[in-house]
């Protein structure tokens, strides 16, 4: 929260430094005295968890890059070398691979938290947009990283995703092909592609770290939203970030790390695809090609449309839609706690995304057997895609106008401490 600093340097050296580079003052103001609403719940600990995830990915990634070889002939074997021969290589690689899934798990919870409590609304629009940007950068980074082991899924995933650009041929002839050839550095995904993806995979996490800095800056100007969605009215509504939220974040982070460690040590290939332990073969596509779980809902949307360019546009549009959410929601009330209609539609959206994820994980011509009647899954994908777009572009603007919201509490303090707002 923008306010004047209460930092008082305690020692001679810190007084000296404070006049030259007030970095300790910045740390103090943003991580110690930063006034935080006193009613934040478990769902607000995921920002800290995500910072931890980014740190884990960067540290393990830098180590893996010391042993990995970005060459089409050597990449697969160098990964096997990491797994078998490098000291603790198996641990570091499993942390990195499962860390990506944990990162996306946390980011999805964080995003749905933001949607539920209306954290994207005025004055936090830029905060939300920066978050969507981080999410897109994460997807790009994860995609580049998935290509590096150079297994069958790596190769064909790279082929399918880069070929999305070839849909532009239907707008301007040869434009799409020129872009794919430029991305590949050849006539197909190959050695040149692998090398540049490695370079970008190393670069983008630092770009993410930069945008995370902006994200936190944009958070600290208006201050945290909170489960009630009402503004902080004074010091009685807040507690200092340290020790209250440093401890709360640390507690939930340790639970999260237990889950993370559970996957790393007991089910390290749970999120992986066995086909990726087969070296890349440009002549044979695996029969069932699926992206990583965190991309499945968008994959289902792509496949729900039988026309190439429109399918690609539906996929891209689903992501671009997120940028407009702050202006699509017309309600003055932020939190779903006081929006009965929005609350229901929100949960339908959450289920919708899970359903789309399931459909995306199944084969292109799979069907659901409903007591003898075959329901092709592609129809579920169409229904799900329609709801996703309908939620953001129709329902969100509409229900803000017609919904009868519940009465908002007077203040955070009164809601937490009872009618007097005083500690009893």
């Amino acid at each position, binding site marked *: 929260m923008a306010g004047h600093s209460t930092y008082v340097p305690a020692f001679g050296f810190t007084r000296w430094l404070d006049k030259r580079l007030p970095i300790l003052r910045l740390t103090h103001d943003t991580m110690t005295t930063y006034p935080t609403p006193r009613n934040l719940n478990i769902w607000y600990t995921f920002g800290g968890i995500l910072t931890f995830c980014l740190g884990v990915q960067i540290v393990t990634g830098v180590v893996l890059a010391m042993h990995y070889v970005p060459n089409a002939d050597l990449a697969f074997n160098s990964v096997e070398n990491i797994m078998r021969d490098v000291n603790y290589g198996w641990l570091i690689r499993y942390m990195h691979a499962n860390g990506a899934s944990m990162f996306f798990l946390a980011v999805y919870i964080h995003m749905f938290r933001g949607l539920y409590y209306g954290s994207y609304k005025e004055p936090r629009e830029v905060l939300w947009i920066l978050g969507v940007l981080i999410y897109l950068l994460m997807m790009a980074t994860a995609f580049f990283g998935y290509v590096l082991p150079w297994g069958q899924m790596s190769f064909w995933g790279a082929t399918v995703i880069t070929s999305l650009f070839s849909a532009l041929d239907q707008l301007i002839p040869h434009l799409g092909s020129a872009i794919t050839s430029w991305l590949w550095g050849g006539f197909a995904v190959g050695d040149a592609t692998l090398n540049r993806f490695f370079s970008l995979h190393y670069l983008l996490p630092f770009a993410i770290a930069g945008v995370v800095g902006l994200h936190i800056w944009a958070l600290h100007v208006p201050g945290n939203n909170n489960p009630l969605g009402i503004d902080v009215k004074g010091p009685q509504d807040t507690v200092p970030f340290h020790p209250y939220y440093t401890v709360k974040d640390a507690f939930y982070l340790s639970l999260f790390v237990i889950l993370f460690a559970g996957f790393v040590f007991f089910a390290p290939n749970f999120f992986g695809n066995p086909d990726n332990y087969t070296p890349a073969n440009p*002549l044979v596509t695996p029969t069932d*090609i699926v992206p990583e779980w965190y991309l499945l809902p968008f994959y289902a949307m792509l496949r729900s449309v039988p026309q190439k360019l429109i399918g690609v546009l539906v996929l891209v549009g689903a992501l671009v839609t997120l940028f407009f959410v702050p202006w699509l929601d017309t309600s003055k009330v932020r939190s779903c706690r006081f929006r009965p209609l929005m609350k229901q539609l929100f949960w339908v959206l959450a289920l919708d995304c899970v359903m789309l994820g399931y459909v995306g994980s199944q084969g292109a011509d799979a069907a659901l057997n409903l007591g003898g009647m075959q329901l092709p899954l592609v129809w579920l994908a169409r229904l799900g895609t329609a709801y996703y777009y309908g939620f953001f572009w129709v329902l969100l603007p509409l229900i803000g106008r017609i919904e009868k919201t519940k009465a908002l509490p007077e203040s955070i303090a009164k809601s937490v401490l009872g009618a007097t707002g005083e500690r009893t």
Partner: protein
Amino acid sequence: MATATKPEPTRRDFLYIATGAVGAVGAAFAAWPFIDQMNPTSAVLAMASIEADISSVQLGQQVVFKWRGHPLFVRRRTPKEIAEARAVSLSDLPDPVARNANLPDNAPATDANRGSKAEWLVLVGVCTHLGCTPTVSTPQAPQGDYGGWLCHCHGSQYDTAGRIRKGPAPQNLAVPPYSFLSDTKIKVG
């Protein structure tokens, strides 16, 4: 003052804009090497053609070669497959253009325009949707409804002339530039 007139542009204004313009053009030129470096190198482009020995391909069989990093399908069609492909009317084809690099761009997608010899079909084995390799259909293991190929990634189906019939792929499988060097040898690219 209510009626402020814009001052005449000065020499300084002109120099300011001209310098900025030259700087912008310079930046664009400087960016080009950093963009173009990602395009295929001349070594990659030089590897663009292969010669393939097709003498071992049996009737009804498909053999896959590698050309420009992609699978190259060489299929020796049975009379039945040829007859099926010839029986299709052009109006039933989602993509009515031959997509044959050896013919003009607007040649119709008749079966005769898909290969220079009826028995031989030479195709780039890249699904025109998102680049997977379609699986060949045989009488023992049919793939899709049209006897040609099925792409498992997103369900595109091709007929026995490699023309798209169903699914999200927008175009027929591409016919690469090729020629018969002898009855048993082709040059592709």
